[in-house]
């Protein structure tokens, strides 16, 4: 049965770009192990000969004509909530390195 430890939780938090407090790590650890314990029941299910489901509509590539459509708003409209600074139609973010 799967059991996570503190390092595992920290690793996941890093991957998900979420900072956790020590108390949050402890709480999540207990909860995850309980939840994983529950979903582990799937390990014993026999799925021989079956493919995973990726979508349930049965649709295949839905295409449209390659023409310009006016949706009635501009990129600036769509980004008006953005907290990042906007220059020349681009988002200026904090430096990545250092």
């Amino acid at each position, binding site marked *: 049965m799967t059991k996570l430890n503190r390092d595992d939780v920290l690793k996941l938090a890093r991957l998900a770009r979420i900072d956790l407090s020590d108390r949050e790590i402890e709480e999540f650890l207990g909860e995850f192990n309980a939840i994983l314990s*529950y979903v582990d029941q799937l390990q014993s299910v026999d*799925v021989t000969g079956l493919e995973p489901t990726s979508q349930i509509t049965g649709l295949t590539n839905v295409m449209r004509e390659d023409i310009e459509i006016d949706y009635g708003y501009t990129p600036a409209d769509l980004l008006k*909530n953005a907290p990042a600074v906007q220059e020349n139609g681009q988002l200026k973010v904090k430096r*990545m390195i250092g």
Partner: protein
Amino acid sequence: MSQWASISTIAKAVRGGSMTARENVERALRTIEEKSEYNAIIATIEDRALIRADQIDKIVKNGDDPGVLAGVPFIAKDNFLVFGAETTAASNILKGFHAPYQATAIDRLEAAGAVCVAKANLDAFAHGSSTENSDYFTTKNPVDPTRVPGGSSGGSAAAVILDMAPFALGTDTGGSIRLPASFCGAVGYKPTYGLVSRSGVIAMASSTDTIGPLTRTVDDAAIILDIIAGVDPLDSTTIERHEQGYNSVDLPLSGIKIGVISELFGEGLDSGVRAVIEQSIEKLRAHGADLVDVSIPSLPQALAVYYIVCPAEVSSNLSRYDGQRYAYSHPDAANLDESYSKTRSVGFGKEAKRRIMLGTYVLSSGYYDAYYKKAQTVRTKLINEFNETFEHVDFLLGPTAPTTAFKIGEHSSDPLQMYLTDIMTVSANLVGIPAISIPSGESDGLPVGLQLMAAQKADRELLGLSKSVEGII
């Protein structure tokens, strides 16, 4: 006794000039104010609603067609983008976010003359079964305010029962329309996956998210589905609507074969709920329906499948909330990476973080096969079993929830206990079939919902059957 006539009656009166859209909107806003202690609503959009109402009234005065839903007020769950209005998904990370465009479902309702008056409370990002995960406040069940309204569309269900509007919009990813409908005594309809466009609705789990109405009657639900259903070029997972629409068929019970799913009547089912559902089954039999026991052997694993697939998809969909594009950004970030992680730490509530991290785990290298891929394969097994069952019966029946509305705080410290509330609803989402919860009586004074399901794309028939069932149970 509701203060609202049926949706068709209201629209007819507005179109005929005997009632104005404005008076309907004012009535809705007044009721919202009067019932504010239930915390069903995050915000009203009064100015916008009155402007729209006046536009409708002007169209009527000019002798033009204001639409099939003229002057009917409605409330939208706050994960629907409504142009210009604050849309928060009940999360702190979207506080102050004003929708720069709007959901196709909202567009279609407005084009038909309906008027959105308010945004309803929900579990933040629709993660939850009780509306207790809202970052703002918990909604109280209208029938018993010490209890939860169910979730995640708890605000929408409560709003309808509190008579704030004739209908509300909700979303159903694992049961979030049907469960609050059951707990509050409303009708809650989950369409076939793909029948209603998800464009402009904040994404939770993209392979199961659906949009649907909460109403007092099946007829009203059918009218709303008829307006919002159909292919949308903005959502390439949408499917064709039925050419005869959704609100015109009545399906009498005689000759109908309904499968009662035995796995939904196991140990976990509350005895009071069981008694109500069994009584309803007898009533249906007495009216000529042929009810037989059916078994869906993989159904007990559906919840485990859901709580792997759903968090996985949630972790992907919520990665966009990075402090750069959507309203909130943490003020003390030294670099971009800190901006991401500090924003997400403060902006997201506990359940969002829980699901994101669980999803990250089941998708991560070394675990993907054992968890996500395995779950999606068990999902195939479940789909096959449902398809096979529908070769022998026309519809399926069971309770919507294992219990009636639980007390506020009862499950909020145990996530797994909370997840078990969805045990009867998640299958329909995983398989993509339509399902409805219809009020079926009470147990200890609390509403009990009866759930009906049909094969994929059989929405028209399901609604037709539901109209007959509604009058009997």
